[in-house]
């Protein structure tokens, strides 16, 4: 983090959107009193970090200090950007190595603080989360920040950004949902037909090993052919490129974790449990719904989590076949070597995946049957 702040350039000072810029070190670009402020906060932080016993108040205080440093750095950058763009309309000021290093360190420390909070202290956890994102929220009240390159990119494409955000959610959401609808019954089916299960898993494993770009491309030809043969398919917008092949490929990818975990979940149940259920006069449907699914719920939900998170990432690639989503900007940005444009969509994609993962973890905890504590076993 310190390396990020002082040894590496914080900002890239570019003459325009695409040209490479000059490195801008924190010491060079910031006014003296701001540098002193950041430095003294850092020293304070380091002193506290080396104290042996952390209690919750001290921990919160340290988060506060870090949060303040983060905020200060963003506003310094904003001021620099404002000054530069007033001087030259085309000038761009972008975050670079130093800034990202700092953010990485920032997130690691905050997560560490979050993870060491005792399970039940929800108020403290909430405060840490608020402190972590507070600097980002405060950005909107600072005029200069809008002049930083990545936000300029956002402003200029705001509508498209929101649209592709929605697209991204729609594609990964519907693909995951379909994967669940197909995957769970398939998992149950493969448990009941052990011989066929080997083939099902063989097939899904092969799909999983195909690189995603190849699979998207692979589907174009058969889908285009299908669309050309059937007026109905054509009329509902089914074609070689776009939504249909993207979602199909994503579903295929998403199946394996769900099918595998459903199968593993049901297989892991002690056979005597199922035998006694049967011996007590439960129908096979009742055994499935009352015994097998609830008992295997944690494993099953974990499969859905893996599938969903993976799907959000893969959706970015789906833009290649014209399905839309954040991938659209990423590949556009790569094509134009506009790093800020790539970051503008890569970061939300990552955040979305992390967010989905966290939500799923929470749901797993909620749906895990009581009396079966996997952690303590």
């Amino acid at each position: 983090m310190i390396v990020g702040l002082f040894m590496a350039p914080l900002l890239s000072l570019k003459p325009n959107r695409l040209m490479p810029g000059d490195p801008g070190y924190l010491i060079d670009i910031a006014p003296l009193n701001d540098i002193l402020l950041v430095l003294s906060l850092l020293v304070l932080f380091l002193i506290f970090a080396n104290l042996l016993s952390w209690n919750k108040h001290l921990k919160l205080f340290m988060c506060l200090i870090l949060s303040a440093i983060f905020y200060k750095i963003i506003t310094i950058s904003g001021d620099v950007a404002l000054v530069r763009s007033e001087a030259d309309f085309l000038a761009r000021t972008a975050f670079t190595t130093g800034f990202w290093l700092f953010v990485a360190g920032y997130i690691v420390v905050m997560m560490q603080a979050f993870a060491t909070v005792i399970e039940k202290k929800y108020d403290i956890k909430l405060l840490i989360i608020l402190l972590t994102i507070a600097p980002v929220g405060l950005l909107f009240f600072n005029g200069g920040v809008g002049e930083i390159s990545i936000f300029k990119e956002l402003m200029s494409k705001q509508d498209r950004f929101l649209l592709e955000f929605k697209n991204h959610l729609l594609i990964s959401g519907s693909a995951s949902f379909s994967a669940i609808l197909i995957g769970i019954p398939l998992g149950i089916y493969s448990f009941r037909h052990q011989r066929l299960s080997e083939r099902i898993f063989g097939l899904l494993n092969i799909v999983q090993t195909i690189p995603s770009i190849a699979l998207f491309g692979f589907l174009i030809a058969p889908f285009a052919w299908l669309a050309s043969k059937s007026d109905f398919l054509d009329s509902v917008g089914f074609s070689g490129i776009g939504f249909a092949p993207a979602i199909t490929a994503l579903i295929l990818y998403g199946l394996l974790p769900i099918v595998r975990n459903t199968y593993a979940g049901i297989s892991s149940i002690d056979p005597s449990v199922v035998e006694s259920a049967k011996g007590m006069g439960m129908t096979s449907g009742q055994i499935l719904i009352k015994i097998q699914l609830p008992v295997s719920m944690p494993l099953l939900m974990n499969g859905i989590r893996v599938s969903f998170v993976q799907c959000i990432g893969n959706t970015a690639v789906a833009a290649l076949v014209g399905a839309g989503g954040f991938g659209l900007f990423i590949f556009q940005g790569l094509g134009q070597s506009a790093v800020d444009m790539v970051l503008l969509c890569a970061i939300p994609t990552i955040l979305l995946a992390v967010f989905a993962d966290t939500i799923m973890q929470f749901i797993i905890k909620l749906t895990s049957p009581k009396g079966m504590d996997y952690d303590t076993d």
Partner: protein
Amino acid sequence: MIQIKNLTKNYNDYAAVKDISLDIKKGELCVMIGPSGCGKSTTLKVLNRLETPTEGSVFINGEDISNIDPVILRRGIGYVIQNVGLFPHMTASENIATVPQLLKWDKNKIGERVEYLLNLVGLEPFEYSKKYPAELSGGEAQRVGVARALAADPEVLLMDEPFGALDPITRSELQRSLVKIQSELKKTILFVTHDIDEAILLADMVVLMKDGEIVQSGSPTQMLEFPVNKFVRDFVGTDRALKRLSLTKVETFCKPAPYVSLNTDISNAVEMIDNGIYIWVVDENEKPCGWLDAYMDEPTGFVKDYCTIDSFENFTVSKKQSVKEALNKMIKSGVNQLVVVDGDERLLGEISIDDIIQKS
């Protein structure tokens, strides 16, 4: 109650059960016993249609079970298996309530039933009803298993080596519980085990199987006294005389014995020693507390001044205990006779090793 007629079960070429017929009367506990692979578990599973017979038929209450929907049939038959198979995501109460819920009983009725059953199997409802299977010991889990099987008050109970996976102490506790429960409920029970002692303890009727056939069936005493062939003799063990004693109660061999109270004058007491060796001494509640030896030098005073008082429970047996237990106590304490007491611990008489040997 249960009639098995010419039952045969083949797995491909292998005949697991060969043409067996068996009648189990209402309220009878029938134990099927035999070495592994003798077909006893298969026979049991035919009864709730977890196995389909190759030939032959089974009647419960006069009705051919192949005409009953297996799901309906099973809800009317309690089923206990060796590995218990409690549902891990349900509490003890929820486990027990399974069949009543399948039968759509009224909620209050289920609640009362669960509480009654927990008490019946010796688990305090307040403490255990909310526990999950993972929180129960093996013995407690199987008690819940038995309660679950009894939940909808079935007439027939099938128990497939229910205590086989338990340690010896827990096993004998559960066996005693089952005896008590059975004396209250009088269910018709088919119980499968490979433990001959368990069979002798529990059974009204023992059915000994080997290679899919019934070798001998009858009461435990019959089996021990008149084994039909070498296989049965070997299976019941070389200690079958002792095993038979485990079926006999102490009261059978109990004979009256003279006794004196602690406060008797010693000279009167000495006169009462009719066998010339000793006399039992009781306290004011007629509870035996020691004995008086015949050989004393000019005794004066009361019995209590001369009486030998040891840890006296080593020398007493209850009339309800088995003769085998009495013998065990004699050997352990190194004596030839024990005092026999009744249910209130009052002296009833004595049992001696000579009588056991001469009369049995």
